């Protein structure tokens, strides 16, 4: 282990890497927020990420363009979510069971298709995969500190962070978002004022598919242009944890995503310093547990404070 110097670990690159590591989780989280606000906790995010990652590679190879890869991923993920939606909304299957089955099925399915479509087992890496290129933002890239941090990322990183803002606007500032949230909170009440709950749920699920397709594409077509079995490494589940942490609210969930992204980036960085990789790679998952624990604790403290305040007011009145 030897010379562990904090100054050389916590560098600007680490924070820049945080953004990049948070991106796939962020996409899945923002998508998952849509479905969870419409009343369905989408347990299948992990499967959507892996499907997205796989079909992005297929699309990139077939069309020779990363945008083609993105298109393939979006179509594949939308089809997958549509199946999820049909099973749950039309055939009344339990959403958690369907999501779980999808996760397991998608892992095997992509392995099978990897053999069939790309003739590879386990990993597919080739020059035929065309990935995205980094974007240098003019002006900002020349600012010393900010430039290194913000500029020079892959385009999907910016899309991910902008999507937080978009999701917030759609959910909280448009009538449509209001209707969607109403369906999630009180379906009967929403129905009584003429909102079709099923339609909203379909929409929520399909958005989660769409966003996860972006996340999957980012995984396989940025930085490393490859597809590997199990490359999502539980990021779909981390997204669920982020949604859970943020109470399905976009900005609070973003914080969780950044924490997970930071843990991921730190894990990669610490490995270069000779710490045992097995221990270091536990970091994102351990940090998830800690984050969930702390948020539950602070929630309870807030509730207690609110309750005691209420009590004081009541006694004052009497």
């Amino acid at each position, binding site marked *: 282990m030897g010379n562990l110097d904090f100054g050389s670990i916590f560098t600007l690159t680490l924070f820049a890497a945080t953004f990049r590591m948070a991106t796939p989780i962020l996409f899945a989280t923002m998508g998952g927020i849509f479905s969870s606000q419409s009343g369905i906790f989408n347990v299948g995010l992990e499967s959507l990420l892996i499907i997205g990652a796989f079909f992005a590679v297929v699309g990139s190879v077939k069309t020779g363009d990363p945008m083609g890869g993105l298109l393939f991923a979006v179509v594949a993920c939308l089809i997958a979510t549509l199946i999820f939606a049909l099973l749950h909304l039309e055939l009344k299957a339990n959403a958690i*069971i*369907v999501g779980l089955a999808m996760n397991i*099925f998608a892992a095997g399915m992509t392995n099978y298709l990897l053999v069939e479509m790309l003739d590879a087992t386990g990993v597919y890496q080739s020059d035929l995969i065309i990935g995205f290129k980094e974007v240098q933002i003019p002006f900002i890239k020349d600012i010393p500190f900010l430039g290194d941090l913000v500029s020079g990322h892959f385009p999907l990183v910016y899309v991910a962070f902008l999507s937080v803002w978009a999701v917030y606007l759609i959910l909280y500032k448009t009538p449509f978002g209001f209707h969607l949230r109403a369906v999630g909170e009180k379906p009967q009440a929403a129905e009584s004022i003429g909102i079709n709950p099923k339609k909203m749920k379909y929409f929520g699920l399909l958005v989660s598919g769409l966003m996860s397709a972006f996340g999957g594409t980012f995984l396989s077509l940025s930085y490393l242009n490859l597809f590997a079995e199990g490359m999502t490494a539980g990021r779909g589940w981390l997204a669920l944890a982020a949604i859970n942490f943020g109470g399905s609210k976009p900005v609070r969930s973003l914080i969780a995503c950044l924490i997970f992204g930071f843990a991921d980036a730190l894990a990669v960085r610490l490995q270069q310093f000779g710490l*045992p990789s097995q221990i270091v790679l*536990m970091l994102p998952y351990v940090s998830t547990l800690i984050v969930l624990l702390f948020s539950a604790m602070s929630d309870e403290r807030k509730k207690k404070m609110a309750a005691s305040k209420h009590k004081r007011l009541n006694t004052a009145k009497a």
Partner: protein
Amino acid sequence: MLNKSQKPTEIPIYKKIIVGAGTQIANYIIILFISISIGALVIFLSGMDPLTAYLALIKGAFGNWIKTADTLDRSTVMILAGIAGTLAFRTNVINLGLEGQLYIGAFAAALVGFSVTGLSKAVHIPLCLLAGMLGGAMWTLPVIYMKLRWNITELVTTLMMNYIAIRFTEYLIAFPFKDPTARLAGSPVLEASARLPKLIQGSTLNIGFIIAIATAIFSFWFLFKSKTGYEMRMVGLNKDFAAASGIPVNRSYTLAMMMSGAIVGLGGAIMITGFFGRFLGSFSSGYGWDGMMIALLAQNHPLGVIPASLFYGALANGALAMQSATGVPQTVVVMVKGTVMFFVTVMVFVRFIRRRLTKWVT
């Protein structure tokens, strides 16, 4: 469900049993038929002969006594994982951490197996298996604490514990318990006194299979005949109602989670002491996940887990043989498994068959 206008007394009990059992059997036969057809279609589309492939699969799984025994051995850990899933799901505990509990159980068993010496088989083997159960059960404790004290859903926490368990055991065999002579990353080899006795010469089948069957029968008794099991099922059906009628909900939750962990941990212990003989990194090819699927396939019935596991085990072993004999990639069985899951979760046929059967019997 029976038609509401009919009074239940109109149909004698034996006919109801015929309808109930008949519906289930017919349902599974239809599902199996469709899944196999879809698998055949996929094989056909990739330009190979489905019949030869399936024959190779069946031959690989049940071709002779040795192969049949190997299939039974393969399904041993699946039975245990399936029962672990069943116990949790019946109590409405979504234990997605079976894979991690399997790893910890397996490592605990290996630890007792290679570090304790000078015991007789009759003492050493139960000690190893017990360590496995204890390891699996202990690994659920953080999850239970976070759920009961802080109301954090086990959906996410059990999953995180999976990743932590896999990495943690990898660390243990890479550093503190590294066997310098091993080619793959693995623990030292177990003492001979810790190895499970084989049942048939030439096969890997060992007494673990009998333990698994016994566990299934015990779980059936426990869930459906014991008071605690009844309480757990009531909590699973309706937590609030159970709490209102004085059933200890938290105790049922804790028990379901820990039993689930213990049983899948036992599965890990049996794999190590029976099959591998040492702990190997990433030794499980997703048996915990298979267990969950098996529990769903068996509709959370402990005895139904046995045929479901045999089906999964046969697919796994047969697919390998099929791949080497005909060149059809073994991942084709994913299609079959996926289709089975699809029809089991949606239960489209059940209603139809039951209606027909009820009309026909009465």
